[in-house]
């Protein structure tokens, strides 16, 4: 059986790949647009540019007054110092974000499958109740969360933080998979049923093989979100288990660590999600647009 490309996916891809891909022509209007866009691009790249040139300077050349000067060569002093300070925390972030993303996508896939292909009375209300969880300010649940996590002895370590990210990730992962499975024609599920497959059979042999792109979107989205998260991490971890965002914030607040090391550290902390974005940006964008509730 060949998988038809779900129509909603095509519509969403329009943001990424225009339907008719004409190469841009150098008309007068386009040249003006190009110049304005280049100015905007410079603004967007400025912080990264600054982090990069600062990071690549030798310690001797670092000074606030010469912040904007290009490095005289490629030196890794700053990155080494930042890595010495943040290395264990980068490791913590990996141990946190990878399992959280995997568990989240497994759970989201099952929920999405149920809420799109096995609807029952009240399932739409459950879905809406899930969605609201995506928007709540976490300050409104923070005190009970800490109390609860203390009660079940999951404060201070990474497993507790994984649990929290998986739970608060349920709304968005369910939403992405539900929208994804909704694009599979019901006949596909029906035909599976006629062939004698049940709930799990249809999931394993029909839904799952067709949802690889869905998994890519959710894995990337959750990895990025969990990696970048800060609030849960400061309440639920201790210095030894701090993920990189907490450690970086601590570095930035310290009077001892120089600004150049902070900048190099910021770039190190951003690198994993940036690489994921550069390599798999298409899937990242789909996760992003799903959060706006309309593809």
């Amino acid at each position: 059986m060949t998988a038809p490309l779900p129509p909603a996916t095509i519509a969403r891809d329009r943001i990424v790949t225009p339907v008719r891909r004409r190469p841009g022509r150098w008309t007068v209007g386009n040249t003006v647009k190009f110049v304005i866009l280049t100015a905007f691009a410079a603004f967007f790249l400025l912080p990264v540019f600054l982090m990069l040139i600062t990071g690549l300077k030798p310690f001797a050349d670092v000074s606030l007054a010469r912040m904007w000067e290009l490095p005289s060569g490629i030196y890794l002093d700053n990155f080494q110092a930042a890595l010495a300070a943040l290395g264990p925390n980068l490791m913590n972030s990996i141990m946190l974000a990878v399992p959280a993303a995997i568990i989240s996508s497994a759970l989201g896939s099952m929920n999405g499958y149920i809420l799109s292909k096995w609807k029952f009375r009240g399932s739409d209300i459950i879905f809406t109740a899930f969605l609201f969880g995506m928007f709540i300010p976490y300050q409104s649940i923070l005190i009970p969360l800490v109390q609860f996590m203390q009660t079940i002895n999951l404060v201070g370590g990474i497993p507790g933080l994984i649990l929290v990210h998986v739970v608060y990730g349920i709304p968005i992962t369910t939403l992405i998979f539900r929208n994804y499975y909704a694009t599979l024609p019901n006949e596909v599920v029906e035909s599976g049923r006629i062939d004698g497959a049940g709930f799990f059979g249809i999931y394993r042999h029909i839904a799952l093989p067709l949802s690889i792109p869905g998994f890519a979107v959710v894995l990337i989205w959750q990895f990025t979100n969990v990696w970048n998260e800060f609030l849960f991490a400061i309440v639920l971890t201790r210095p030894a288990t701090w993920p990189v965002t907490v450690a970086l914030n601590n570095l930035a607040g310290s009077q001892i660590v120089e600004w150049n090391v902070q900048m190099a550290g910021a770039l190190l902390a951003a690198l994993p999600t940036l690489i994921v974005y550069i390599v798999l940006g298409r899937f990242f964008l789909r996760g992003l647009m799903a959060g706006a509730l309309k593809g």
Partner: protein
Amino acid sequence: MRGLHALRRHWVPVAMLTPSVILIGIFVYGFIAWSLRVSASEWRGLLPDYTWAGLDNFVNLLSDRRFQIDMRNTVVFTTFFVVGAVLVGLVLAILLDRHVPGESIFRSIFLFPLAISLIVTGVAWRWLMNPGSGERVSGLNLLFDNLGLDSLINAWHTTDPPWGSAFVALPAVWQMSGFTMALFLGGLRAIPEELKEAARVDGASEFQVYRHVIMPLLRPALLSALIILGHLSLKVFDLIVALSGKDIRLDVPAIYMWTTTFDANNFARGAAIGIFLLLSVALLVVPYLVWSLRRETEL
């Protein structure tokens, strides 16, 4: 018989959904209820004290000087952030819409800040917006100085309240404009070419086509942008912490909640601020959720 059949058909999916329902039930709704209880208590210390206090904590907040400053900062930040991100996103989307050379590279550049942490953004902009002068002048002020644009040199987020919060919106706009651009670009690309062509045939100028054909059709995208950005700005926390430590001049409710709860052990007031934030976000998001789901069933 039908009921039995439905039961047999549905018990497996219901059972498989149950763990998530329980988790969301506890971690979202149970915790909100418990926060409500704490917000109506006298818990001000390391040990919980659930003496009933009614709405006292909320009433006290309204006359709390710091909370008033926070509200004012939130209004200033929200205004500059939402207007800024919508305008920049809209301009970028319109510029990119009609096959400009290098379109995909530009799009990637405008979207990449979304992939990085607000903490990273805060740390980088802390040095770009460094207000130091004399020997310590650096960042954008130094750049302006070098370019002869001295009139642009300013104190950035250390400007006197409430306008310091307007400068916090700058890194926030930097980070989120790609999102509004993508929303608007999606909206623009969904408009059939024939519709614009028809308007042009009727003698509409390119500006009129935008004003009367395209803009009205972008309204759903605009609404999404306003809701998402608006609720994000009510929740803003990480960015300000990383940008300024917990500078009281840039204080917002989310940071106040944090310090009063975990630094000052005033759990009752912390819970009240949390519930206040929840209600403001709910006012914005619940109608939107209803609208989105209704729209979905209509399609």
